[in-house]
């Protein structure tokens, strides 16, 4: 499919939060949760629900009321609001599986302080219309949860040999994959993969464009 460079750039800009400027892989936000929270798929799904529940409303609040509160007060309000939402959301999440909060540990309540919240509201939401802020919040949390779920699937399958609790036939089981050090290394590799993929796509499309121009003349 000869997708031209313009189409590619437009597609990327429309899905800005998910593939092009992924908050975790390219932006480097919310790394502690991406490293420690992805030890099992259940954790990842719980965290992504929490992400959706906290980021989207907060972007709305930021774009509407956030501009007028002074800086230090504004941040504390966001964080307290996020913590309150997390308390509320913890009931539906508790239904996923009884031991969810023990395996998540502190990383569920850390969602209140994660950097996607603090940075996206500052950089984007303050000078954007409420609708655009909400759409951006949706895109970012979608990108965030996509990355987390993919990493969680890989780490759980290789680490425990189970997926969502049910055993899966795997070649080799490395229990040390669930430790924090492998989280760092695995996230580093994923960031490198994302960067490599975008370079590859751009260079191939630019080459097609050049080749297209040459044949055109």
């Amino acid at each position: 499919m000869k997708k031209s460079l313009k189409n590619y750039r437009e597609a990327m800009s429309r899905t800005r939060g998910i593939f092009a400027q992924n908050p975790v892989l390219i932006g480097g936000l919310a790394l502690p949760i991406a490293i420690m929270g992805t030890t099992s798929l259940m954790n990842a799904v719980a965290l992504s629900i929490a992400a959706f529940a906290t980021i989207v409303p907060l972007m709305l609040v930021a774009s509407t009321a956030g501009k007028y509160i002074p800086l230090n007060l504004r941040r504390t309000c966001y964080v307290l609001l996020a913590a309150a939402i997390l308390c509320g959301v913890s009931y539906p999440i508790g239904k996923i599986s009884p031991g969810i909060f023990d395996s998540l540990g502190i990383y569920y309540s850390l969602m209140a302080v994660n950097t996607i919240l603090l940075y996206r509201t500052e950089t984007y939401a303050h000078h954007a219309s409420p609708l655009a802020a909400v759409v951006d919040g949706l895109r970012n949390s979608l990108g965030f949860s996509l990355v987390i779920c993919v990493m969680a699937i890989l780490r759980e399958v290789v680490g425990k040999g189970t997926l969502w609790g049910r055993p899966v036939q795997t070649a080799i089981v490395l229990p040390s994959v669930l430790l924090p050090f492998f989280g760092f290394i695995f996230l580093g590799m994923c960031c490198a993969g994302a960067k490599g993929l975008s370079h590859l796509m751009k260079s191939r499309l630019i080459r097609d464009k050049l080749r297209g121009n040459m044949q055109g003349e």
Partner: protein
Amino acid sequence: MLNSILTFVALTFTAMVVENALFSRALATSKALILVRSKKELFLFGGSVTVMTTLSSLLSWVANYFTRQLGWNFQLRAVAFLCCICVVYQVLCAAMVLKWPKEYEQLKDILSLSALNSAVFGSLIISSMQNYSLAGTIGYGLGTGIGLTISLILVYVGRKNLAMSNVPKVFKGLPIVLIYIGILSLAIYGLIGHQLPS
């Protein structure tokens, strides 16, 4: 009195080296990589995290004591600790505005980011979950702050070294620093030897 000092020192040491905020719990990674660009910012970030953890651990011990009496579930207690942090942060900001208004204007942004930080919040929750004594909580907070500053120095030196060597194009920037921190946490994991209560 003596054993409280002993727990204080023991917990400071464990929080500093064994349960290091950055390497064993990956607590402040995203802020460490985005916020800390120069030596000045590094010590500012580390210092403000240390001050925040030690001061707010006082308040959080009191909050922990009451919330355990009232029997709130885990999430509600987490919100209580967050309120302690915000209160301490506001008090600090008010003190800063009165004493050094000029510096406060410049450092307003960095201070607010390093105060509302996963390292501060995480260390409070852990010390309250383990139900340490008052001296223990303060020691744990102090240890987290100092441990974080030391690991930030290590990462800062590592980043200067990495900027110098010709890393492949794909790994330049964020990925290689993450792998560098990962290998360091692999080295420090040798001290622990078993899985940490997360």
